[in-house]
């Protein structure tokens, strides 16, 4: 019979014990009577000889070994009853804990998934990445600061050959979010679909130490120009798109019209070499990239497009390796005519930990997530302050109860244990609620951070770390803030406690309690100011003059290469696109270009004026058709735009933007008719024919700092095929996407829409980050305000209860209601003002810390400050007014009779 079973047969065992003892006594009485003792005397003697029955029963129960559990159950039962008896207190405490811990656990789930998690590969700690920053966009030519993070195919191969320090050095297509290939399964009925493809070196999977889920992975022999085109499918794609069909392996898929054999499926859980919301569906070897997928550019020895990650051999020191790689890089760039001696001297590479992959997402979210973690910590501190206050108030309220129990002989340890059980119970309920809150919170954060995203390899499910974290916080809070009042209560001498009663004029709430409220007010004003700053920053960003027109414009992305178009066919395609879209009723302008304003990517090239080879700048090149500038609303400031007279046979011209003029010309100098050359193997000089306004591309933070030049679609350029169509209509057209699909199908059935968005949606998409930050800040600011208000309310209400008899006396002596309201309200406002006095300077200091994340703000703005102060004061008035009015409605006669 184990203790557990005994516990549940307690009742039966008690009955048996009773029966057993009764039998003993009866037998003894019978013996005594038999030997001649009268019955009454026999009974008395028997009981005397037997000893105290209840003590013996207790002794027997102890022998069973279940007493500790029984008294624990008693404590828990009693604790639950106590919590149920004061639902207001319980609800406030549980909600406070849930919000404080939940917010923290949610943020931590995200931080854990995005910043701390290593790739699911063999020994991620020994992986090293060449380069420590996320370079955007394929580029060529020297970098201003000489810190290289992205490399050309040729550079990669030379580095690989000359670094025996690496067990394997693998390369992968660098961090563009959108790397579509158009895929159609051979013989299938399905239409061609845009999917994510990533080009990787032959040793990519080997370097990560991965095993295939099906078939085989890409090997070095696939990564040869002469090898047949093969691809590895990602596990989620295999499962979700192809239903885990085994026959996928070995079958042919048409990728951008080229047949590729699927040789295998990547392991489950592998989401590529970086955390991304567009994880690759297919992995393809670098050497066999067909021209239809951009292979021409990738084989250009100056085109940087690869990230490099390697697994170092054990015992290789990182610093000498970094030196060696930098020297190697200098040697490679020395052969490149685009690099000046100064460029070569500056060239270096910084090694970074590669265990988490290429980390472009980590880079872009790290500062935001760290900020959010700080904020969540502040919220947790406010929550803990609230809990402390609540438990202290409760401890004091129960001082009398504890005194009575001590006076009745309860052991001090038992009382403390009882109170401890109660606070742990509270913490446990709070912790469980917090877990639910953290799951919901993490889901919400994921939705806010990565809107509309199903592909992100992050789950909102709290990890073990998060679970442990939440439980630790809950228990620490419970124990720390539950035991202190318990000890105070238990220490009180019963007689004194019983005597002192409730009639007192001093104190009300203790200094510690008031201090906590002041602290809460200070923290929440900091968070509110922060929230104000971030929403102001967002609004400034969104209302920046982007020098474009977005109304009634639709942006369509296609991939001519993927549809099988060759160099000599695209000009005809561009013309057909213009004609067919113009034929749609309501269409005003049709722009065709490589990229459009406020898009995530562009192509940059090194540029210098002819005759001034020393002044290098990096400029973005976009090729456009004649209607493009009108279609996006970029105005021509000088000279002319691109026209239909710019053809393959006419002079090579470019239109440049204002930033370009500022960067390369002295003020007042006329740029028209000047010539410049841009990167590429055989540069052909451009003659500048016009200047356009500096429309925002990729990021409004780069306004005024982004030189650009626009060439005609029809003339040779550094960039590939145009993939963007801007359709401007005279009125909003809801069915534009369907019309576009039909129009494209009418031109070529292989022309799929890669992406369709209104211009407004595309612009809004560039602010997702900032919007997320601002929403979260508002959320946390609101949470902090709510908690602080609750705290202030709690303390004020408590002091009103404590001072009921004092207020009664004051009123009996002639104080009127207004006086009482003012008296109570004054102390609430005073605490809030003290909080402001601390919080406002802290907010100013905090603003300097987040300055880099704000746009157009260098310090706390007046409006954000006043809004925060106003909100806090309003909340304080509400929190103070309710107890104050209750105090004013005290009936003096009843108040005095209370004792």
């Amino acid at each position, binding site marked *: 019979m184990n203790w557990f079973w005994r516990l549940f047969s307690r009742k039966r065992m008690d009955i*048996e*014990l009773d*029966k*057993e*003892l009764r*039998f*003993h006594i*009866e*037998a*003894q009485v019978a013996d005594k009577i038999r030997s001649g003792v009268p019955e009454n005397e026999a009974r008395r003697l028997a009981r005397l*000889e*037997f*000893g*105290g*029955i209840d*003590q*013996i029963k207790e*002794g*027997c129960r*102890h*022998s*069973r*070994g279940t007493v500790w559990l029984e008294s624990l159950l008693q404590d828990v039962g009693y604790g639950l009853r106590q919590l149920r008896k004061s639902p207001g207190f319980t609800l406030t405490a549980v909600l406070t804990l849930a919000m404080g811990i939940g917010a923290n656990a949610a943020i931590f789930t995200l931080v854990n998934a995005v910043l701390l998690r290593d790739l699911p590969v063999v020994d991620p700690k020994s992986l090293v990445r060449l380069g420590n920053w996320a370079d955007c966009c394929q580029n060529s030519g020297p970098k201003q600061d000489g810190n290289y993070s992205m490399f050309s195919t040729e550079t990669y191969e030379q580095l690989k050959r000359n670094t025996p320090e690496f067990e394997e050095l693998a390369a992968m297509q660098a961090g563009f979010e959108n790397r579509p290939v158009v895929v159609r399964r051979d013989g299938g009925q399905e239409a061609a679909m845009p999917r994510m493809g990533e080009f990787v070196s032959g040793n990519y999977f080997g370097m990560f130490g991965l095993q295939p889920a099906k078939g085989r992975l890409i090997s070095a022999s696939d990564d040869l120009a002469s090898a047949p085109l093969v691809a590895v499918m990602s596990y989620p794609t295999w499962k979700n798109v192809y239903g885990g069909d085994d026959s996928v392996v070995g079958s042919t898929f048409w990728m951008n019209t080229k047949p590729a054999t699927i040789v295998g499926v990547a392991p489950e859980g592998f989401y590529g070499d970086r955390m991304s919301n567009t994880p690759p569906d297919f992995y393809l070897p670098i050497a066999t990239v067909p021209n239809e997928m951009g292979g021409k550019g990738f084989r250009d020895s100056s085109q940087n497009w690869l990230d490099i990650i390697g697994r170092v051999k054990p015992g290789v020191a990182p610093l000498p390796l970094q030196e060696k790689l930098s020297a190697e890089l200098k040697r490679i760039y020395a052969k490149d005519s685009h690099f000046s001696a100064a460029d070569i001297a500056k060239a270096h590479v910084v090694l970074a930990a590669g265990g988490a992959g290429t980390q472009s997402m980590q880079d872009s979210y790290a500062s935001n997530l760290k900020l959010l973690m700080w904020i969540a910590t502040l919220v947790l501190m406010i929550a803990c302050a609230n809990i402390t206050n609540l438990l202290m108030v409760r401890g004091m309220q129960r001082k009398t109860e504890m005194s009575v129990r001590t006076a009745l002989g309860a052991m001090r340890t038992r009382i403390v244990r009882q109170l401890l059980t109660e606070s742990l119970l509270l913490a446990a309920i709070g912790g469980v609620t917090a877990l639910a809150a953290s799951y919901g919170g993490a889901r919400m954060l994921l939705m806010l951070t990565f809107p509309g995203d199903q592909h992100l390899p992050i789950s909102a499910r709290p990890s073990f770390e998060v679970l442990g974290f939440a439980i630790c916080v809950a228990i620490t809070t419970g124990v720390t803030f539950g035991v202190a009042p318990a000890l105070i209560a238990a220490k009180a001498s019963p007689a004194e406690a019983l005597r002192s009663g409730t009639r007192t004029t001093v104190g009300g709430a203790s200094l510690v309690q008031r201090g906590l409220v002041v602290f809460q007010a200070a923290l929440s004003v900091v968070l509110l100011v922060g929230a104000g700053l971030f929403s102001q920053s967002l609004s400034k960003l969104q209302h920046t003059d982007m020098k474009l027109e977005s109304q009634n414009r639709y942006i369509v992305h296609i991939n001519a290469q993927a549809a099988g178009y060759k160099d000599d066919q695209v000009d005809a395609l561009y013309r057909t696109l213009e004609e067919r879209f113009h034929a749609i009723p309501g269409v005003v302008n049709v722009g065709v270009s490589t990229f459009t304003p406020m898009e995530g990517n562009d192509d940059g090239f090194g540029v210098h004026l002819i005759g001034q080879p020393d002044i290098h700048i990096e400029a973005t090149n976009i090729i456009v058709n004649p209607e493009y500038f009108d279609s996006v609303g970029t105005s021509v400031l000088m000279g002319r735009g691109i026209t239909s007279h710019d053809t393959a046979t006419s002079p090579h011209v470019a239109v440049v933007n204002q930033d370009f003029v500022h960067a390369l010309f002295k003020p007042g100098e006329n740029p028209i008719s000047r010539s410049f050359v841009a990167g590429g193997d055989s540069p052909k000089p451009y003659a500048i024919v016009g200047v356009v306004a500096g429309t925002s591309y990729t990021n409004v933070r780069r306004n005024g700092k982004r030189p650009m030049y626009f060439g005609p679609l029809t003339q040779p350029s550094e960039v590939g095929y145009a993939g963007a169509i801007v359709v401007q209509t005279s009125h909003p057209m809801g069915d534009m996407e369907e019309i576009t699909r039909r129009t494209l199908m009418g031109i070529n059935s292989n022309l799929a829409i890669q992406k369709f968005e209104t211009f407004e949606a595309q612009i809004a998409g560039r602010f997702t980050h900032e919007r997320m930050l601002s929403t979260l800040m508002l959320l946390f600011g609101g949470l902090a305000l709510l908690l602080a208000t609750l705290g202030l309310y709690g303390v004020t209400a408590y002091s009103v209860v404590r001072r009921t008899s004092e207020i009664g006396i004051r009123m009996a002596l002639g104080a009127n209601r207004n006086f009482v309201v003012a008296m109570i309200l004054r102390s609430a406002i005073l605490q809030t003002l003290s909080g402001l006095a601390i919080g406002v300077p802290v907010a100013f200091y905090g603003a300097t810390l987040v300055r880099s994340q704000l746009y157009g703000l260098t310090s706390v703005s007046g409006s954000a400050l006043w809004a925060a102060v106003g909100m806090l004061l309003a909340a304080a008035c509400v929190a103070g007014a309710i107890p104050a009015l209750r105090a004013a409605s005290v009936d003096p006669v009843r108040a005095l009779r209370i004792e």
Partner: protein
Amino acid sequence: MKEDDKFDLPQGTLDLLIMRVVSLGPIHGYAIAQRIQQMSREALQVQQGSLYPALHRLEYKKLLIAKWQATETGREAKFYELTARGRAFLKDETEKWKRLTDVVGLILKGTLEGVS
């Protein structure tokens, strides 16, 4: 026998006495108390009730096993019996006890001789 000649039991010996009595065959609590008194020729002062916590503890340790049976007078009583484990334990402890008393006796005897 005078009250002064009665002993209080040394710590831990009650268990041994109970088990010795129980080793003679299934027996209920009251009879155990009677037997201890008789066997010690009334020299031991055992508060009758204090048997029961000891009995329950021994049962919990699985040295004894109990079942409800009718007595010769037809009433239901809880009868205790040694388990195999209890038997081994009793044998062990009895030997230990004997060795202890021998050694203590030896020493005390020597001391007394030295004193006298």
